[in-house]
């Protein structure tokens, strides 16, 4: 079934209302071009982005992408001239390729709200969540919305706390957003899966380059030798203790109401003290959410939330979904993406990044759900 959007004029009017609400909260309205340079986006998100975004090109500017989201252009714009603290709002179309499911929209409006302010990150996190909640509140009773929260910062802290080499920590951190790969690495580093035999054979050779071909390509012999050295060092590593692996696996499975999750993770922190600060941040955030009138007692917390679909979100994450409709995308979602701003900042002379949290709404889906209710 092809996607049939609700009346466009009503969706645009709703988007304008939502944006006006964020403006009233002190956000400056920003615009972003529809055509973005593909280079920066691909460098950030990798080849997978091509499966989600439309690419086009001309001979002069090269590859361009139809704006898949506003996050990147807004951060770039801020880095080029904005000063912190800043808050922005925007409204406009985003474009997403849909090759799996014809029923999903490939063009829809997004309204967003972003806060770039490092003075009190938990307060900023809570404010973004509360404003998104206020925006979807009228729908809550009509269709039954469910909010889920998570915190990738706790996971990152747990990885930092493992008794292992920096190289192994870096490998785990790199695959934080690819759960299958993360688990595979964890199993290997714990000694639960055998060391790859081809690798062992290679390391035992007196001259690993005996059968190597001629030196071709940009990845030269020195680069290969330095990886061989890294492989030797890795082979000499002692496995991560089983107890630590169990703690991290227990952490990944935490999925309960926020107060219970906090208790649970405080227990884990006794044996894995590296997560203590991150758990305290979660507690401060819960208090900040309560000050905004969020019913924290009933709020769901999932330690793994956002791991598969929110690359570079490295702290608080959240989403509002329609209960019983897993076929629909989240009606509102967002989180903290300091890691993304560090990636983008490297090329812009701002490698430290900016403290950034934000969320987006889908006014088209909101109108559609109201009509159906």
């Amino acid at each position, binding site marked *: 079934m092809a996607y049939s959007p609700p009346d466009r004029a009503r969706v645009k009017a709703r988007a304008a209302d939502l944006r006006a609400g964020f403006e009233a909260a002190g956000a400056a309205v920003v615009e972003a071009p529809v055509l973005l340079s593909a280079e920066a986006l691909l460098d950030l998100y990798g*080849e997978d982005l091509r499966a989600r975004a439309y690419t086009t090109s001309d001979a002069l500017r090269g590859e361009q992408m139809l704006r898949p989201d506003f996050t990147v252009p807004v951060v770039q714009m801020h880095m080029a001239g904005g000063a912190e603290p800043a808050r922005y709002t925007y409204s406009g179309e985003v474009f997403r390729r849909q090759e799996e499911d014809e029923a999903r929209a490939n063009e829809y409006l997004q309204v967003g709200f972003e806060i770039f302010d490092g003075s009190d990150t938990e307060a900023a996190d809570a404010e973004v969540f509360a404003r998104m909640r206020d925006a979807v509140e009228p729908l809550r009773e009509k269709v039954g919305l469910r909010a889920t929260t998570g915190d990738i910062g706790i996971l990152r802290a747990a990885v930092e706390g493992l008794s292992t080499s920096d190289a192994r920590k870096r490998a785990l951190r790199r695959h934080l957003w690819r759960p299958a790969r993360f688990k595979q690495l964890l199993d290997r580093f714990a000694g639960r899966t055998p060391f790859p035999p081809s690798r062992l054979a*290679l390391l035992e050779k007196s001259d690993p380059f005996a059968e190597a071909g001629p030196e071709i390509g940009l990845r030269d012999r020195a680069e290969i030798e330095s990886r061989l050295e890294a492989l030797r060092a890795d082979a000499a590593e002692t496995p991560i203790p089983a107890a630590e692996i169990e703690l991290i696996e227990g952490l990944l499975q935490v999925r309960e109401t926020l107060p219970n999750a906090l208790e649970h993770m405080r227990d884990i922190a006794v044996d894995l003290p590296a997560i203590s600060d991150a758990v305290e941040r979660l507690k401060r955030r819960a208090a900040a959410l309560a000050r905004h009138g969020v019913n924290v007692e009933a709020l769901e917390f999932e330690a793994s939330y956002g791991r598969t679909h929110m690359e570079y979100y490295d702290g608080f994450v959240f989403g509002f979904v329609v209960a019983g409709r897993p076929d629909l995308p989240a009606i509102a979602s967002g989180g903290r993406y300091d890691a993304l701003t560090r990636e983008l900042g490297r090329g812009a002379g701002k490698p430290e990044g900016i403290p950034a949290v934000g969320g987006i709404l889908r006014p088209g889906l909101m109108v559609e759900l109201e009509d159906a209710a």
Partner: protein
Amino acid sequence: MSLKLGVPSKGRLMEKTFDWFGSRGITLGRAGGDREYAGKVEGIDGVELVLLSAGEIPRELNAGRIHLGVTGTDLVREKLGQWEQRVEELAELGFGHADLIIAVPQLWVDVETLDDLDEAAAVFRRRHGFRLRIATKYHRLIRDFMKSHGVADYQLVDSQGATEGTVKNETAEAVADITSTGETLRANHLKILGDGLVLKSQATLFRSRTAPMAEEDRAAMAQLIRRLDLD
């Protein structure tokens, strides 16, 4: 109207397709001389031969402009999203065998598996400031394969020919291409990753699920399927 059968318009693929149908009592051939792209069909009624570039056959099947088509599995999977909903595989024809593989320089003694490639790509990106480049024309297939194996920090660069030469020319660090014997790879000092087989392809007869059919076309299709022993 008649049932349209799309067949590659030249080379070994065309000749072997003609042979395959011929041995089943259906004679396919060019209508005029060697240079004319009109076809003729003998031995069955209601079937029309359309000679096309093998690369265009998936698109024509998808659009429903031909009912049947012979082309490589690799091309169908690369070019059609949700290919199983667009076409049906009727028969593997037993020729045109080729493997889509990932290959890296033989010099890379530290890279034997996709895991190695992923780790090497991470270091490469930190060192060179851009993602490790893999030259290919099979963008969709390679992207899906890399994703399902959790390989990150790479990029695909388009290469429509002489792909094995891109490493030496330093326009790519690795390649993803079709090979049958591996000779071209070896000649260019490349080796296939141990788990780098993406797809085994061969010439295959596909049926379009979207092509409109009149009553007589259905009859012709049924008869053809019977004659080809595919029922």
